[in-house]
């Protein structure tokens, strides 16, 4: 390599490779564009297919009718209501538990071997197949607690499923709050809890809420654990209490798809569109909330 008298590299060291570097940059750009195109194309095909099959069944009647043996009359009222109930219940159960657990681990727990083991296990739980949670729910809530195939058993099972996701998200949000905020609170004479409650938690809230909404979106898309605990596939009523049987959109879809009649398959496609719309609404809400709250909070 040529060097100047000071031992510094000269312009000539860079010039010959400039063309190569530009070519590499271009190549990488093409490759990453290709990657995103593959992802979008797959998703687009799926949505286009579903919309083509199910668009014409979408109507107010479709949303407000109960399932029926006659496909042209079948609707998703019980599934939509069930999904809504499950959503609210899971939020009520998993949000406080998950945030409290995250606060303990992040703000109060001593950094010991035990907490390290707990941490690893929580991260692992987030990756456990959902059917395993279904089996757990069946054994614990349905059988041992004798809750039966009820709304509350389903909600508790799904809460277990999303709890690790909420804990991990809430911990990351808490960890992103700089230690200087905690010191500021403590130096003002705040107790540990006051510091968390008044200063740390509000700063972490956008992250916690985003994580929770994404976890809830996962919960309403789950089918396997609810089938395992025996959620009904044909429900011609809306649950009146926590202990009533219920169904949700994914189960209704699963049920209609497994019928032989093509008319039911169209109903299933319609239900998928509704489910996707609900999920999109949720993710959009999470993004909007994060953008809104984060604009206010700068460290």
């Amino acid at each position: 390599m040529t060097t100047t008298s000071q031992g510094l590299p000269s312009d000539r060291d860079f010039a010959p490779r400039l063309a190569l570097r530009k070519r590499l940059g271009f190549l990488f750009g093409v490759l990453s564009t290709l990657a995103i195109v593959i992802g979008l194309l797959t998703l687009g095909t799926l949505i286009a297919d579903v919309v083509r099959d199910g668009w014409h069944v979408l109507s107010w009647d479709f949303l407000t009718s109960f399932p029926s043996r006659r496909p042209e009359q079948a609707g998703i009222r019980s599934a939509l209501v069930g999904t809504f109930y499950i959503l609210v219940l899971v939020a009520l159960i998993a949000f406080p538990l998950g945030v409290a657990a995250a606060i303990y681990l992040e703000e109060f727990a001593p950094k010991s071997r035990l907490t390290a083991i707990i941490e690893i296990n929580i991260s692992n739980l987030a990756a456990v197949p959902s059917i395993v949670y279904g089996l757990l729910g069946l054994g614990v809530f349905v059988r041992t607690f004798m809750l039966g195939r009820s709304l509350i058993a389903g909600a508790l099972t799904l809460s277990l499923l999303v709890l690790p996701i909420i804990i991990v998200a809430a911990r990351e949000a808490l960890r992103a709050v700089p230690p200087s905020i905690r010191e500021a609170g403590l130096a003002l004479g705040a107790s540990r809890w006051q510091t968390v409650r008044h200063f740390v938690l509000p700063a972490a809230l956008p992250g916690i809420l985003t994580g929770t909404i994404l976890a809830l979106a996962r919960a309403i898309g789950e089918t396997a654990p609810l089938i395992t605990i025996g959620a009904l596939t044909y429900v011609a009523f809306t649950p009146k209490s926590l202990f009533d049987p219920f169904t949700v959109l994914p189960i209704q879809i699963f049920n209609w798809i497994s019928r032989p009649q093509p008319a039911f398959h169209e109903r299933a496609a319609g239900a998928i569109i509704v489910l996707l719309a609900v999920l999109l609404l949720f993710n959009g809400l999470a993004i909007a909330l994060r953008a809104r709250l984060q604009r206010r909070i700068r460290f």
Partner: protein
Amino acid sequence: MSDPMTTLTTAQAARAEAARGTGPAPIAAGMDVEHLSAFYGRFQALDDITFPIHPGAVTAVIGPSGCGKSTFIRCLNRLHELTPGARVTGSVRLEGIEIYQPGIDPARVRQLIGMVFQKPNPFPTLSIYDNVLSGVRLHRPRLSRAEADEIVERSLRAAALWDEVKDKLKAPGTSLSGGQQQRLCIARALAVEPLVLLMDEPTSALDPIATYRIEELIWELKQRYTIVIVTHNMQQAARIADYVAFLLAGEERTGRLIEFDTAQRIFTNPKRKETEDYITGKIG
């Protein structure tokens, strides 16, 4: 025996009254540090520090990086012990009352001894107004609107920030410039009516003009408060301090007090060779 904190609580209440103009001028509080050693696990950061902190004066703690200045100041309001594995031995007294004695709530100590940090740290979720009140509200959740307004104005005036922010009290504290944020943090500390104000390199993250304003402010504040300031800037110490403590760490990185004296004597006629070397720029 009565609660050891009662005397101090009374002193704090007297300050609040004096601040509102309904009581006599308060007498500043002094501190005494004796045989103070601080540890992080097995590592000893400070060894056997003893010197007085005189009431109503500015005491500067100077020394090169890693000499334990910050650790020292964090021992004065019991913040050091919050680091996992950290502990303190020796004695720190505020108006003759041992702040490390059992039965004293560290949170109460920190209410009496305010602190300002190196990097301005206003609460990002709170407005300028609520930032000032954040400490007060912890102890008095039911503050009347008039009282709150009065505390905010008085504290912001004391921190020389009122004129700059009086028209945007609802704006986020973090919307201010660095120097303004630091004065907001000072206002927040003053709002609690502390007896002593600790400042850990309060200007090291600021530009020269913002630094000058903070130094001016420290001049004003020492009429009413006892101030301990950590600084690595000797010119700053020479400009604002009445007393100077010079700390130095040896090979094993444990900080020791080399010399404590009036600022005048430290900067014109230090007794120890190490002090002279440091202030003349030979070490550190």
